[in-house]
């Protein structure tokens, strides 16, 4: 009997996982769709962050699509603003606006600008695109919340190439100095930037050691493994600490589309018709 119940649990949790994987594939498909429609955009870094953002919005981030400025919400900031297709997809998927609007990405008159515009899109806390700036703003939000005695959390997603920006380390220093334990940075380490491999252009490792020395607590995970991602967010929320937290997540650039994976040329390029078909088939097969 005991065994049977356990089996039943396993069955349900597998079903649940299946639902999640389906949703994740769906998000990847929407990303490819919108970039293909736009004829330009950044598929590589959008695809590498899907699981990290999906799990956050699915389980941990407090938000209300019908009231984007809800006072008790948590803040999510996409500091790697070029992953806008991912942000728009997750926001529309969660009901901030109609999924159909994704077709207007990057078109004249669309709210969905090439990089996220907070004045236009509900759910976008601050405009980003110029690398490093979202991270500093997230620090400022965390400080503002802290001095107001509020318990909202602040999540900010950066790329590994992005942390080459000098201001990132000014921000890292200040967040450590002001003990912003309500702040969780997630670094999507997909190991590629526009000009090639990060380690060849300007190496950023060892990332955890750098952040630790700036007064942060760190964890390194596989950024596509749902269990590890869950554990990381739980670690941020549950471990008592006065330090800001950084989740360093190893990912694959262009994840889910074989010919985009680990190829820097897919940082900022849209697929042509054949590539689009192939990409969609591959994602559906997954």
């Amino acid at each position, binding site marked *: 009997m005991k065994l049977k119940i356990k089996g039943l649990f396993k069955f349900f949790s597998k079903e649940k996982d299946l639902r999640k994987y389906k949703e994740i594939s769906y998000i990847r498909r929407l990303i490819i769709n919108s970039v293909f429609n736009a004829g330009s955009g950044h598929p590589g870094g959008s695809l590498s962050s899907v699981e990290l953002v999906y799990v956050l919005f699915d389980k941990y981030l407090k938000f209300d699509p019908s009231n984007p400025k809800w006072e008790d919400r948590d803040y999510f900031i996409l500091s790697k603003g070029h992953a806008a297709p991912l942000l728009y997809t997750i926001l529309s998927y969660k009901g901030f606006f109609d999924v159909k609007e994704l077709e207007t990405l990057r078109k004249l008159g669309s709210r969905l600008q090439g990089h996220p*515009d*907070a*004045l236009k899109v509900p759910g976008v*806390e*601050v*405009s980003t*695109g*110029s690398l*490093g*700036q979202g*991270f*500093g*703003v*997230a*620090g*400022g*939000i*965390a*400080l*503002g*919340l802290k*001095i*107001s005695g*509020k318990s909202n959390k602040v999540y900010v997603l950066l790329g590994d190439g992005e942390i080459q920006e*000098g*201001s990132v380390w*000014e*921000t890292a*220093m*200040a967040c450590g*100095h*002001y003990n912003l334990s309500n702040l969780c940075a997630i670094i999507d380490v997909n190991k590629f930037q526009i000009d090639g491999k990060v380690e060849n252009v300007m190496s950023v490792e060892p990332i955890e050691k750098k952040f630790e020395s700036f007064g942060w607590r760190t964890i390194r995970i596989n950024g596509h493994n749902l269990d590890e991602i869950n554990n990381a967010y739980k670690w941020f929320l549950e471990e008592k600490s006065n330090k800001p937290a950084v989740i360093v997540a190893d990912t694959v650039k262009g994840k889910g589309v074989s010919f985009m994976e680990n190829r820097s040329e897919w940082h900022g390029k849209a697929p042509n018709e054949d590539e689009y078909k192939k990409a969609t088939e591959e994602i559906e097969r997954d």
Partner: protein
Amino acid sequence: MVRLLMKMSIKKQQKKLRGIKKMIRMASSRDAYGDKLIELGYKIPNLIVMDADLSSSTKTIKFKSEFPDRHFNLGVAESNLMLFAAGASLTNKIVFVSSFAMFATGRAWEMIRNTIAHDRLNVKIVASHSGVAVGEDGYSHQATEDIAIIRAIPEMKVFSPADAFEVQKIIEYIAYKPGPFYVRLSRENSPLFLDTYDDYEFQEGKFFQLSDGNDATIFSTGTVTYFALEAVEELKKIGINVRLFNASSIKPIDKDSIIKSARETGCILTVEDHNIIGGLGSAVSEVVSENCPVLVKRLGIPDVFGTSGKPKELFKLFGLTTDNIIENIKYLIKNKK
């Protein structure tokens, strides 16, 4: 008794104020800013202040001593200073940010442009040490391009007060007005004179007229406006009547006053402690050339870097003096059409 005598003598001085050099009252813009912040700190509970290791120079340290929990030093890191200010403003804070004009606008320009200005955030950038009035520190600390580079950003408003009295008026105004502002302060103590005008008020997009006349017009901004005022009074003695405006609202600019004065006086002199490229002179010329072209002469830093020296010596070097203003007005009147 001694006190009474002192009071009387101060009153006498104030009465004799204009035109009498010995009697000039001097006041510090920076101190006026620091004092005003304290006053506003009591009135506005969600007002906070951020600085980048220059709080004793920008005088935000005054606010810190009164409200230690509402003052944040971000260290020598102006880019992050602006970003933290932007973030804090998103949590319903009114954020005053201060540094030297050079670093607040130059180092952190892109943060101001892409985040603060674009998203119309409630961040008030009040920078001290503008222009060659910085003096001995030399070119690296003399911001002579700040008006130009901030004016070019959409949504940014740029104010340049002429004295400590106007500083307080402007700081009060921006504290209650949502959105981003840039206010340019000077390091040096400078003459206090605007408080002697009963009808003075600060208005966004409006210049305050200091004198009337139809022979020429001067638009002047910042503490050098006092030199323009002296020049106008000297010129009056020889029968030349010059219209003088205190152009503290550089953006938005007072188009009406510029166009009207161009039409009625036929020539314009601009005076500023800033590069003649991109500053008040350029802003006035833009309006004049599109609406009512007349002869415009720009007094300011002639597209060169500043240098070390006493502020007074530097003003003389760059022609920002009463005498040079007089000479330029005479030239303009002679050459206007």
